[in-house]
């Protein structure tokens, strides 16, 4: 893998100072920083070929449409989907899940049906289903979680029933870092013909993603969490299912023929892409994917594992620090609390030391309720972080403890 200093040099923001201290960015779970090549791409779209896609016959529109479709192909190959038409651009993971919750709900859900979620879900994979269930009279069943932050698989198996219509689970818990056994979850659901949606928001950036090997029916992720721009996301769906689903938004480009008496919809993927899409975002996402591929997803995974191991060791040595989420299968996230010190006080002081962490419920209130806490301090690391930065965090936490006790 490329040298760490060279990698860091690719991300201009990592060189800046916060309150006169070098930035230590440990909020990668919330959003990742952008390499210069992504910033340059966005710049290039607007300065060299900005024009609306799929509409014009003119040169610029052709170029923008071509780049947008190339981005779709890039995403397809990155997640190893079978067909390009199975890649739908959305505004983000939230947008993708809302789309499926609506469309799938309209097509397949009726009174008394059940959807299975895990207790580890982000609000984005809870609320859209609640809204749908309310509309359709369906129910949500929840896979419980063990003390170390793993789903209890046997309980999941018990929840699967003739009433189950869909399973929607996260690939990785955003608040604890647990990697879920999605393949087994999918296998079990498929054995009784239940489709599965995987929320990949916290999974895709940490290793190789292969939707065909995983065999998920839907997969959702966000561009901004994978070093790409904000406001762009992806919904992957198997053709056979996507073709059955009604569109969730109406507008331009998603139609074949419109008259006031009847409108026929366009083919996949355009049926699900109403209005002017965020093409600069999609094209920027493609550049981010190229960048990650140049580093190698396996290399990224290895490096992040080393960081996690080092951080766990460093932080566990601090007296009074409790880590939430102790699964063996984890991404590089450490969620913790300090004894008798409010997470907010911890976060405020770390901030002034130039360390960016997230404090709160991480939009996963049910997880916090499960552990009987109001929230945690979350340090989420990624490949551009260093061991020195982990030391700075460790020293910072020790400073917090000395200030408040």
């Amino acid at each position, binding site marked *: 893998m490329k040298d760490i200093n060279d990698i860091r040099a690719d991300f201009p923001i990592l060189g800046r100072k916060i309150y006169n201290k070098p930035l230590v960015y440990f909020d990668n779970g919330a959003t990742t920083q952008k390499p210069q090549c992504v910033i340059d791409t966005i710049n290039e779209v607007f300065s060299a070929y900005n024009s609306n896609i799929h509409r014009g016959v003119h040169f610029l529109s052709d170029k923008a449409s071509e780049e947008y479709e190339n981005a779709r192909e890039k995403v397809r190959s990155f997640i190893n989907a079978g067909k390009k038409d199975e890649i739908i651009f959305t505004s983000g993971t939230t947008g993708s899940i809302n789309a499926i919750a609506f469309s799938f709900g309209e097509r397949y859900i009726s009174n008394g049906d059940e959807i299975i979620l895990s207790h580890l879900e982000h609000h984005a994979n809870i609320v859209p289903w609640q809204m749908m269930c309310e509309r359709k009279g369906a129910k949500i069943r929840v896979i419980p979680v063990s003390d170390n932050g793993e789903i209890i698989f046997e309980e999941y198996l018990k929840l699967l029933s003739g009433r189950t219509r869909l399973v929607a689970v996260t690939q990785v818990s955003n608040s604890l870092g647990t990697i879920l056994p999605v393949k087994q979850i999918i296998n079990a659901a498929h054995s009784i013909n239940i489709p599965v949606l995987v929320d990949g928001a916290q999974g895709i950036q940490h290793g190789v993603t292969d939707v065909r090997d995983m065999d998920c029916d839907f997969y959702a992720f966000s561009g901004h969490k994978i070093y790409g721009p904000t406001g762009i996301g992806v919904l992957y769906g198997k053709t056979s299912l996507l073709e059955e689903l009604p569109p969730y938004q109406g507008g331009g480009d998603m139609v074949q023929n419109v008259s006031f008496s009847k409108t026929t919809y366009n083919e996949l993927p355009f049926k699900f892409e109403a209005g002017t899409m965020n093409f600069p975002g999609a094209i920027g996402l493609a550049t981010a994917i190229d960048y990650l591929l140049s580093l190698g997803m396996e290399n990224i995974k290895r490096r992040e594992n080393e960081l996690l191991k080092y951080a766990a060791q460093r932080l566990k040595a601090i007296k009074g620090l409790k880590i939430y989420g102790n699964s063996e299968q984890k991404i590089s996230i450490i969620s913790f609390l300090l004894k008798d010190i*409010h997470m*907010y006080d911890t*976060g405020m002081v770390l901030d*002034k030391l130039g360390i960016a962490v997230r404090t709160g419920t991480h939009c996963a209130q049910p997880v916090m309720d499960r552990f009987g806490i*109001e929230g945690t301090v979350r340090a989420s690391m990624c490949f551009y972080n260093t061991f020195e930065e982990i030391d700075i965090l460790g020293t910072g936490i020790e400073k917090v403890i000395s200030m408040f006790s």
Partner: protein
Amino acid sequence: MTVNEVQDSITEEFSEFEEWMDKYNLLIEMGRELPVIDPVFKTKDFLIEGCQSKVWLHPEFDGKKIKFTADSDAIITKGIVALLIKVLSDRTPEEIISADLYFIDKIGLRQNLSPTRSNGLLSMVKQIKLYAIAYNAKQKI
């Protein structure tokens, strides 16, 4: 002391420190001087819900002036409430309503005022002013 005299003296105290850590230490110390709310008022009715730390604020009006007591589960937040109370407690409703809280800006806490910030400083100021407006209206009836 008037509202502004108190604000000026707080500003002066904070201006002695350059480093954020020292400013925080001062805030922590201020928190210790907070007139603590009677535990019976630590209920939902008196809770100002910020995103992450809880603040309870209780007003007591004697017909002329409003006295505030408060508490928070986070120590820095407690310091911030203590500052607000120092400036705005034991004042008439009119004084509170017309107070221009420039000290927040001057001591560098302005970033904590944005509505998305988690400590809810903005909600605290709003709540204090709302109590003043309510008592003021009551007085006129």
